[in-house]
Structures are given as structure tokens and as C-alpha cells.
């Protein structure tokens, strides 16, 4: 088990948004956290990465508690996070963003080839400033930058935010490639069909609590999930 979250509660300025969340992620699997806007998906991820102060519970990554470890140290240990807002370095070029992904180590040319192979459009725009890329390209760059650190787990917060349906499907094809290559993925999503195709297991989060857990097939067959997220009447 590479990630173990136990009784995690977190929020902003003393007000809890996420309550007593417990879940595990095994090495090499893809897990999705499904929920509507404001359900607490981003807060959960931000708390796991040490970006929020008010946290109780434990987060074990690779057997060690990281709940008191600063964000940059968590990232260096191999837990990569792609936030929905992406947080790219807008004035820097595509290549510079990728090089920073490997910080403080030197970028591995093999990983760079892998990123450009996965996203050929980034290779065409190497020298272009990240801020001038289209939304889809920025998402590719955010994933590429996270991959440059050779992470053991890649966490993505709503990777399809602001993307047209065709681009969203393209993004998920890239994620499936990474999953098939053995990378552990944790993905939050509102676009539930795409997420359930990618993941083997999922958790439904509502009002900051995990309300339902199961395999992707079980979740897809669940009437509540169908009504709330799959548009089935």
C-alpha cells in the first residue's frame, strides 16, 4: 500500500471542509474520488500535500507519515500533484517548466522524451511561454511537469477543468497510457464516466465525507451514482 489516509479532517481557518476521510491506494492502481463542485475534493488533496494548516488524522506515503512534512519535501519524495488551477510558471517556456519539474535534480532526458512522446504538441511549443498555451496544452504541460520528477504517485485534481469534451477524452487517454505503464494514479473528477473508465476503484465524496466506495463497475451500476453523476434518469 503506497498511500494510507486515516481519519483525515481538514479545512480553512478552523472550519472543517473534509471530515474523517479514510482510504488506501495500492501501488500501480488508479483510484478516483468522485464528487460535485464544493464536495471537498480539492481540500482533501491540498491537505494531503501539506498545503493546508488545519489537519488532523494521518497520511502515510510509502510507510511514512507525511502529515507534518512541508509540501516541497513531499514532492521530492515522489508524491506529485497537478492542481486544477495548474500553477504553471506562466512567463517561463515549456522546457523551463519541465526542467523545474525535476528540481532539484537534473532533468532525465528519457523522462523528457516520454513526456514529449505522450504530448507531441508540447514538443512543438518548447520555447513558447507557458502562459500563452491553450487550456488543453497547459493541462498537458502541468501533467508533464509533474512526471519530470519521476513520481511514485501522481495525484490530479479535476484534470478536465475547462477542457472541451474532445480534449478531455484525449487527456484521459494519456492518463490511461501512464496507468498501463504502472504509474499509481489518484484522480478527482466531476466528469464521472471518464474517471470510472480509468480507475479500478472509486470513492464518492459528498459534503466532505466519503459516502460510497467500490470498484468502478459497482459504482457505475449504483442507482444513486447513476442519478447524480451519470445523467441516468
Amino acid at each position, binding site marked *: 500500500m503506497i498511500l494510507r489516509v486515516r481519519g483525515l479532517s481538514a479545512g480553512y481557518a478552523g472550519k472543517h471542509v473534509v471530515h474523517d476521510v479514510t482510504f488506501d491506494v495500492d501501488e500501480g492502481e488508479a483510484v478516483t474520488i468522485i464528487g460535485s463542485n464544493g464536495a471537498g475534493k480539492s481540500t482533501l488533496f491540498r491537505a494531503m*500535500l501539506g*498545503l493546508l494548516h488545519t489537519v488532523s488524522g494521518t497520511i502515510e506515503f510509502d510507510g511514512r507519515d507525511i502529515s507534518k512534512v*512541508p*509540501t*516541497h*519535501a513531499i*514532492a*521530492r519524495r515522489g508524491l*506529485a*500533484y497537478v*492542481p486544477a488551477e*495548474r*500553477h*504553471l*510558471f*506562466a*512567463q*517561463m517556456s515549456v522546457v*523551463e517548466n519541465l*526542467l*523545474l*519539474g525535476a*528540481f*532539484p535534480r*537534473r532533468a532525465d532526458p528519457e523522462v523528457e522524451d516520454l513526456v514529449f512522446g505522450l504530448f507531441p504538441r508540447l514538443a512543438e511549443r518548447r520555447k513558447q511561454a507557458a502562459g500563452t498555451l491553450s487550456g488543453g496544452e497547459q493541462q498537458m504541460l502541468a501533467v508533464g*511537469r*509533474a512526471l519530470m*520528477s519521476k513520481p511514485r504517485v501522481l495525484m490530479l485534481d479535476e484534470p478536465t477543468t475547462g477542457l472541451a469534451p474532445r480534449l478531455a477524452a484525449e487527456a484521459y487517454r494519456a492518463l490511461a497510457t501512464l496507468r498501463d505503464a504502472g504509474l499509481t494514479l489518484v484522480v478527482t473528477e466531476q466528469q464521472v464516466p471518464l474517471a470510472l473508465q480509468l480507475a479500478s476503484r472509486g470513492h464518492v465524496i459528498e459534503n466532505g465525507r466519503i459516502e460510497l466506495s467500490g470498484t468502478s463497475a459497482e459504482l457505475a451500476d449504483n442507482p444513486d451514482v447513476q442519478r447524480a453523476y451519470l445523467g441516468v434518469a
Partner: protein
Amino acid sequence: MRSALVDGVVLGLQYGLLGVGLTLIYGLAGVLNLAHGQIAVLGAIVVALVVDAGAAAFPAALLGIAAAGAFLLLLDLTLMRAVYRQEGERRVLLGLLLMLGVAFVIDGFLVWRYPVEQLALRVGGDAVPILGVRMTRGSLLASGITVAAGLVLVVFFRYSSLGRGVRSVIQDEEGARLCGVSPAAVRTFVFAMSGVLAGLVGVTRSMTSPIGVNNTISFTILALIVAVVGGLGSVSGAFLAGVLLGVVDRLSSFYIGTYVTTIVLLLCAAVTIVARPSGLLGRSPP
């Protein structure tokens, strides 16, 4: 006229070096270092004292520059911790007030202990004609060192991993942390670097005119003007603004009079704020 231009470039390079140290700390930590000029003079006084004690100029200069760097490094690790706990406007205000306090402490200390101590590094040799203007070896060496320092900075920020790390924190702190960059470590490094740059100004400036406690406030004001005109956070902007303002400085004292130059320079800063708030090469607000 021509000599005013050449003098202006020489002076302007010094202004640029002065502004760079201030602009970096502001861009990174949101702290406006109102003690920047004081720290530059502090470095120069250390050099003067070490030379008085019988040391050669070169090792003395290195020691003074290191002292200025160490001083700002120490400030980052102690006083500034309280500032970093604040966010936004409160951070800017607290940083500003604490640095103003530091400036007064340094000024007071220098007036008390070393009121007449001055650093004047004499560089031997005859004047050299450049573009038909006779330039002293001192101003040539000072300009050479400054240009070299500027180039080192540009290469460092563009091509080194640590330099990219510093820029990443300036552009997007959360993004930087997610990439494994520690904002606190980067801040400590840049404070020390800014101190070294301040010390370097004290040393190079003393090759053309003596530096003492009288220079502290004007140095700080100049650094502030250069940083504003160049764009807060921009290294090349600071050097560009420095050279432009140096030329404006010399021309206005040539045509109008020395007494108005500071006013003219402040006017340049004011016009910049109105016409181009992010400065010559600064980032435009998102």
C-alpha cells in the same frame, strides 16, 4: 555633453547594481528593503576598517562584501521570520517598517562609531580615452566589475537550476512548492545574495568617489527609484533602468544643476508609476 553621457553610463551601471539587490528581495519576499543603501555603506566601512588595519585592498573588499551578505542573511533568519508569517498588505507593511528600523539602527551606529570613516579605493594608472572622453581607471574597473556581475546574474537566473528555482518562487509560489522548491530556502539564499550585491556596490562606487555614512539614505532612495522604474522583481529591468537613470542624472546636472537631479529622478519614478505601473521590464499584473 558627450562626457556627461559616458559618465551617465558609468554611474548608471552602479545604479543598476544598487537596484537589483532591492528588486530581487521585493519580488521574492514582498519585503521592501529600506536599509539597502545602509547595508552597502556598512560593507564599505568594513573594507575601510580592514584596510586601516593594514590589509591589502582586494582581500579587504572580499571581506566587506561577505559581511554585507552575512548581515542580510542574519536578518532573514531572525527578524524577517515574523514578516513571513503575515500575508499580503500586512507583510509588505511590517517588512517595510522593520527594514526602516534596521536602516535607522545602522545609520545611528555609523554616526556614533565611524562618523568620518570613508572608503576610497584608489585604482592606479593614467586616464584612458573612451569615445573621446578621458575616463579614470577607477571608473573603468568599477564599470567592468558591475557589467560582469550583471552578466553572472543573468546567466545564473536563466541557465542554472537554482536560478530557475528562484524565478519559480517569484512567479508562482505554490507551483514552486509542488515542484520541490523550498520557498524559505530560496528566500534565505536571495537575501544573502542581495547583501553581497549591496556590498559590491559599496566597493565599486568607492573607486570613483569616497563612500561614508553620508551616502546611506541617497543609496536607498536610488535603489528604490531604479527598482520601480525597472519593474519590481526584474533583474535586466533594474540594469536598464539604472543606465537610463544614470544618463538622466548626469544630463540634468550638466544642463540644470546638481541640486535638482534627485528631484528629476524621483519624477522619472513617478511618471513610470503612472504610465507603466509594472516598470520597464516588470511583469504586468495578471
